């Protein structure tokens, strides 16, 4: 691969991981610019992972001020109120992350996600968004897709003991190892909007139930104009009603989205701490694969639920892209 050699310092620090993904991948990582919007326990884990991996830069967006609650699953925020008081989540996380790896530039951008123009997203190779509404997800995904430069787009959400990752790498070329050979492949990804508009009755029977449940909650929050995660047990009847409407409209059996699952998701929308490193770890690995072009990346959803312990991938691209 072209480009400068790794410095002696980089070789020493990244020795163990270069043995996993090779020096080329390490060089590509060191030139990649990552944007993370929405700080929570899961994105904190993700940020840690890619800062340790040695990306070029990481930019954080989230204007929320640190509160005691934000501390719960986030190890990047010092617990001393004298330290965190008055500062935003991103400022606090930036300070901790810089410390993890001085070779990575970590910075904070203020402002509202949906107000940033397309050119802002064009500054990055990877955009990861979390804690945002359905319409924001769609909007930013579209902004990224309109750029002449290819930007990898991810959404990640964790509620209670469940997590979801969505990936849009557009047209992604990669190499993978098959037996003794390295073969070149490509995947064509649908957008978030395209993916979620696949009719439910067209999906495989064994499709992860979490997929449906997340769509119901997402739509409920949008319809009720709630902030992401701003639901409680009191909303359960409304959520169940919406689920039934959905199932009817999409001719899906109602039992396919268990009420108990929805109940769990609305009862405590906060992240169950041990799930954060799992979702943040899978996301970190996927972003590293996408940047390095090495290894077959996830296509195009990932689900994890502590209840059954499975980490499942689902491909919702077949129905309308034919790929």
């Amino acid at each position, binding site marked *: 691969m072209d480009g400068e050699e790794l410095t002696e310092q980089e070789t020493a620090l990244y020795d163990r991981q270069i043995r996993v993904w090779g020096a080329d991948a390490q060089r590509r990582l060191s030139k990649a610019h990552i944007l993370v919007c929405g700080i929570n326990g899961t994105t904190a884990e993700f940020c840690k992972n890619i800062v340790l991996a040695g990306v070029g830069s990481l930019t954080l967006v989230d204007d929320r001020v640190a509160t005691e609650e934000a501390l719960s699953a986030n190890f990047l925020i010092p617990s001393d109120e004298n330290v965190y008081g008055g500062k935003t989540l991103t400022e606090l996380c930036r300070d901790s992350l810089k410390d993890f790896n001085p070779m990575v530039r970590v910075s904070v951008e203020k402002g509202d996600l949906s107000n940033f123009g397309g050119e802002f997203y064009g500054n990055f190779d990877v955009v990861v968004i979390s804690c945002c509404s359905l319409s924001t997800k769609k909007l930013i995904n579209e902004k990224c897709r309109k750029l002449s430069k290819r930007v990898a787009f991810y959404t990640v959400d964790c509620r209670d003991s469940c997590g979801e990752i969505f990936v849009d790498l557009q047209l992604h070329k990669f190499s993978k190892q098959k037996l003794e050979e390295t073969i070149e492949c490509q995947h064509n990804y649908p957008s978030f909007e395209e993916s979620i508009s696949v009719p439910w009755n067209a999906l495989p029977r064994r499709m992860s139930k979490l997929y449906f449940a997340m769509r119901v909650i997402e739509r409920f929050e949008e319809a009720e104009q709630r902030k992401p995660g701003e639901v409680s047990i009191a909303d359960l009847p409304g959520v169940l009603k919406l689920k039934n409407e959905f199932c009817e409209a999409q001719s899906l059996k109602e039992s396919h989205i268990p009420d108990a699952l929805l109940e769990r998701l609305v009862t405590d929308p906060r992240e169950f701490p041990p799930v954060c490193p799992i979702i943040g770890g899978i996301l970190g690995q996927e972003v590293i694969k996408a940047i390095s072009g*090495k290894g*077959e990346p996830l296509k195009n959803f990932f689900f994890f639920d502590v209840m059954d312990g499975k980490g499942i991938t689902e491909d919702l691209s077949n129905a309308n892209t034919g790929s």
Partner: protein
Amino acid sequence: MATQKHSPAIKGAKVLMVGAGGIGCELLKTLALSGFQDIHIIDMDTIEVSNLNRQFLFRQSHVGQSKAKVARDAVLKFRPHISITPYHANVKDPNFNVEFFKEFNVVLNGLDNLDARRHVNRLCLAADVPLIESGTTGFLGQVTVHVKGRTECYECQPKPAPKTYPVCTITSTPSKFVHCIVWAKELLFAKLFGDKSQANDLNVRSSDGASSSEQAEDVFEHRKDEDIEQYGRKIYDHVFGYNIEVALSNEETWKNRNRPKPIYSKDAMPNDISQQNGNVEKNGATNDLSSVSAMASLGLKNPQDVWSLMENSRVFLEALKLFFMKRGKEIGNMTFDKDDQLAVEFVTAAANIRATAFGIPLHSLFEAKGIAGNIVHAVATTNAIIAGLIVIETIKVLQNDTKNYRMTYCLEHPTKKMLLMPVEPFEPNKSCYVCSETPLSLEINTNRAKLRDIVEKIVKAKLGMNFPIIMHGLALLYEVGEDLDEVMKKNYAANLDKVLCEFPSPVTSGTMLSIEDLQQELSCNINIKHREEFDEEKEPDGMVLSGWTEATSVVKDDKKSNANAGSTSSASQLEAEKNNEIESGTGKKRKLSEVSEAVNPDISSVAGDTRSQGKLEVLDDDEDDIFMFDDWESATNKKKRLQ
């Protein structure tokens, strides 16, 4: 399922973590965030630079300090009100005894070697404390739950043994780069810089071995007034030239093999070039011996480059010279250390020159270091995922939620759509010598073998005991301990050298020996069977232990390695046998027919992975499908799903 529901179980729990490395750092953080308030952590290691890419609780400024202590301080910054008790110590220390283990509700392993894993397994069994075991290599990982009497113990399934190579492959007929590395490190490096009194098979076996070895002694001896450059060339010509000529003279060997080509220094490196070889003065400025480097003095910068034969030859001679000129005091008692730059340079160059002679592809210093040092491939993400899974199982164990215990594999490529694959744990193996009371059986020549052979090759090497007591009926044959008096010590020392059949009550066919380790509270019986002959190649110990199963280990140094598809480094193709890193033991990859190559089982390989050789079976009930492995081989019937 959010934390508060688990609150009472979590808050009241006293947890022991063993290992504060790759998995350990992630685990300590995740335990703290999940609400655990009383965590004890043991790790004997100190922090190194190559840890910092994933052991995120550590900084450059902590290099050299205790992992356990620094990890504690780092976590207290975001969770100041919990109690974390660090021990900068070896988990095998006698004060971590059964009584100590009994204080805990659960033990969580984040270890790097088989030995310590087995030790902790035994203590957990003796103390009746649940153990959660884990390991990672690259993108692969696994978590398993071991609860006495309910699930299998860590040793219910055979573990691959460290790989060894036949001596003649190393000394005479290398066919893979790893053979050249083993030769360079175990034979040449040891011969030149190590303990001279150790036996060394350096010389290529020839038809008249005696005379050549006599001559060899003279060659390796560095005379006081001998020019170091001359000496280096003499060694070079002897090991890469003369020794190969001698080997070639044995026609039988080369009938079905490619004949090697002897290499002499004058051919590999013309005289005028070696004159300019190395500028020792460049190294002279510093007093830090660890920074002495042949690469630096030769102006070679990139450890990823594969050197030419000439470059390798220059590095070889330069490194040899630097050892004698800068590190003369250490000569005679050195052993290879992967963190010793000059030693790695010397071994890389020597292995590459030998590889050239035998027509084997050359490798970069980076790759050679990985092979020679058995370096494990490690990334932060896998450790983080595994730590999350450990905490989930920990909470189940604390709540005694037995029907939901799972062992989970973290895969690189989805299998059955899964990247994280839960599998039901297995019942204890009824013939496990560790957690059941099944006797072992030992075939041995009781007319020739000494008690020492049993102690060294079986009790220590295979059964992994530290403080064994060996009894025959009521007679104590052997014992280790600090409180023995001189008479007893003498007596036991004498017993070690006794032939088995010569004991007052002879140890022979039909004898049952009982062996006990007081620290591990493990005892087992061995039935002795006399056997006259053993196959030297297949049974090199001269004895065969059965009832104790040791999987044959396969070291993959070909390019098939599945698990590290992302890697270009061929070093990564080689699974380390015995490695020095925290998160994993050694690696052996087992092929799973359907679980893809990905379920790795590094040696850390918790119970359960060997059976992954079997087929994966999907129990197709829609609500909660559970994946289980069809058991491997005949054991199938013995194992049942836990209900």
